[in-house]
């Protein structure tokens, strides 16, 4: 029988988790980095989405199914950011541990306060998220909250290492508070400046540091700009005296480049996640890089 020959082969490929190491799958780079900082060598972190891709639109690669099949914990951003690609991966992985509602499933959006929760939801308004703006990672005040939620969940799944996780979280918290002071200091001179962004992805950051968001280059979330809308934004930038055009790394940059050249307004390509640009390889450097790009000239 062919099958009897295949079984030993299969056993060879099976990877049993290292004793004591929790297998954690993180949907986005920033989540993976925080899990790694809290779990250190007691966790093995596996990432799904690439940091420089559109977080809403990720190709649900079958290799993700294999990653999820072996996971003890799946940590997601939530707020429907993964709704277009993750649910089928979870279904196909046949892993009871990481089903929504289980202890092996952690939705970070349930732990932070989401802004722009729409009072009414219609797709007439583009790709709206009924739970609110899901890009909460970019408010640095949310990082300690996220780290705490991860610490609690890791401790719950692996109680033997609870004090280890808590100590790491404490360390991260202290370091983060220190950096926060630094970023606040550097961004103080820019308080009140008006900006235009391509997609509503930097709102949390901009609100936190007192920028004024004058508008978006997308006419509606997820819908590419039309000539008419670009003309409107052009008027808006002139009228409001917008200082920066902020663009993510994954959307087409034609409209932003055009507006920037036309009106001599600075275009800044901003990292939105760990891995979105070369310099932003962890949660600290994401914000370092954003601050550097904003304050550079």
């Amino acid at each position, binding site marked *: 029988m062919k099958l009897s020959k295949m079984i030993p082969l*299969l056993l060879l490929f099976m990877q049993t988790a290292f004793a004591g190491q929790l297998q954690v799958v993180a949907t986005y780079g920033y989540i993976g980095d925080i899990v790694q900082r809290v779990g250190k060598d007691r966790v093995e972190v596996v990432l799904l989405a690439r940091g420089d891709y*559109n977080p809403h*639109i990720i190709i649900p*690669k*079958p290799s993700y*199914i*294999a990653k999820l099949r072996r996971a003890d914990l799946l940590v997601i951003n939530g707020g429907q950011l993964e709704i*277009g690609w993750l649910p*089928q991966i979870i279904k196909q992985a046949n892993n*009871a541990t990481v089903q929504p509602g289980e202890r092996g499933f952690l939705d970070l959006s349930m732990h932070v306060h989401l802004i722009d929760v729409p009072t009414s939801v219609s797709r007439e308004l583009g790709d709206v998220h009924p739970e609110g703006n899901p890009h909460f990672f970019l408010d640095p005040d949310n990082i300690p909250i996220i780290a705490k939620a991860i610490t609690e969940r890791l401790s719950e799944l692996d109680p033997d290492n609870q004090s280890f996780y808590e100590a790491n979280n404490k360390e991260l918290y202290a370091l983060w508070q220190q950096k926060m002071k630094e970023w606040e200091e550097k961004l103080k001179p820019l308080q009140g400046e008006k900006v235009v962004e391509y997609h509503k992805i930097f709102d949390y950051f901009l609100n936190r540091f007192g920028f004024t968001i004058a508008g978006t280059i997308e006419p509606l979330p997820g819908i590419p700009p039309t000539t008419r809308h670009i003309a409107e934004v052009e008027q808006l930038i002139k009228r409001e005296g917008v200082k920066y055009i902020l663009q993510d790394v994954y959307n087409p940059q034609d409209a932003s480049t055009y507006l920037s050249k036309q009106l001599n307004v600075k275009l800044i390509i901003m990292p939105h996640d760990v891995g979105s640009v070369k310099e932003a390889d962890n949660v600290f450097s994401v914000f370092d890089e954003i601050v550097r790009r904003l304050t550079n000239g």
Partner: protein
Amino acid sequence: MKLKETCILALLLLFLWPAGLLRAQSKEGSSFDQSKFVPDIALILDLSGVTRDMANEKYYSLAIPGFSYPFLHEMGSSGSNAHRGWNFNYGELSLYSVVDPYFDLFAVIDLAPDGAGLEEAYFSTRKLPYGFKVKAGRFLASFGRVNEQHEHFWDFANRPLIATALFGEDGLNEIGAQATWVPPTSFYLTFGAEVLNGVNEQSFGTSGFSDPGGTVSVNPVQGPNLYIGFVRSSFDIEEASILFGISNAVGTTRTDHGFSSPGSTGQAVNANTDIIDGDLTVKYSLDAIRYLSFQSEYMYRVLNGTEYTRDSSITISSPSLDKHNSGFYAQVAAKVDQLWRMGIRYDLLMQNDVSLGGADQHMPSNLPRYSAMIEYSPTEFSRFRLQFDRDLSRYAQASGGWSRQPYTQVILQANLTIGAHGAHAF
């Protein structure tokens, strides 16, 4: 009088009721409200306009000899994009929800102007250990690649030729149960087995038949009649994901075309059918938006049995029937920006060996179809597709054999989705 006063008092009381108390009451009024438990509901509407250089009646009567031979199935008259002019292809109402911590339930109701039908309805397990999952109900069989995909997820407006030739316009959609196992390997691997009733119009069937004279009598097959096994695996090279699989379907074939009913002539088949399928999909991301995808599938059918033919003089011949049919398709699609996608497809029915009582029937082989499409999607919820097909696979029965009837068609298709529609797999 007393009644009137009571009424006025009651009305006054109602109007003067403190707002806070009213609110409290309305809240209590929703004690048994279950609206939060409404499942995810979506409606997908698919319409098309078709032009074709062939009259509808003639198009409906065409067959693919050897595949659907010797019965003219009028394959063309059902299914999407069948008629010249406007087609209401389908209104697909889908419902999905978690049943309880242990099960999921998914159903698709196919709405048409003249009625509705249940296309799929199945439950699946959520919590089986060791990577197992079981689903049961009516569902699209996990046979190959395209069969399992819903029509609106296809890169083209119609099913690949080999899939239509072997399974008909509705594909392999059966009642039964499926078990899958995902081993904890470092790369993606899935094993699956299905036990199904096997009542597909083209390749499988269970009904018995007998001629009016009672000479031949073939008993019905007691279900289940169709067994499918499949293996799938995948790996990534840089930004390319490669998915491939092998599927095998084995079952009894029973067809009866006028054989059992009193009348002039009739034919019936009792056979065993074995179909093997190999599929390959490659998706390569160029950047966050653009990608190239390649999808190809090869199917090979072996059918062995007996063909019963009753002529007008009620004599019955029952030669052995032996069919070897194969075909494949290969398609490439490119998403060029956020709004546009385009693709080409090549279909080929390759082997078409049919022998009756050991005599080769000289069926036409190497029958191609060429397709090209361009798509415009304002959002992920609406899509317009222009497709061109040149089909050289269809034949009309003529005196002394078959005559090829090539046709060309252009399809303009609109596909729109409202509501809560679940994410698609790879």
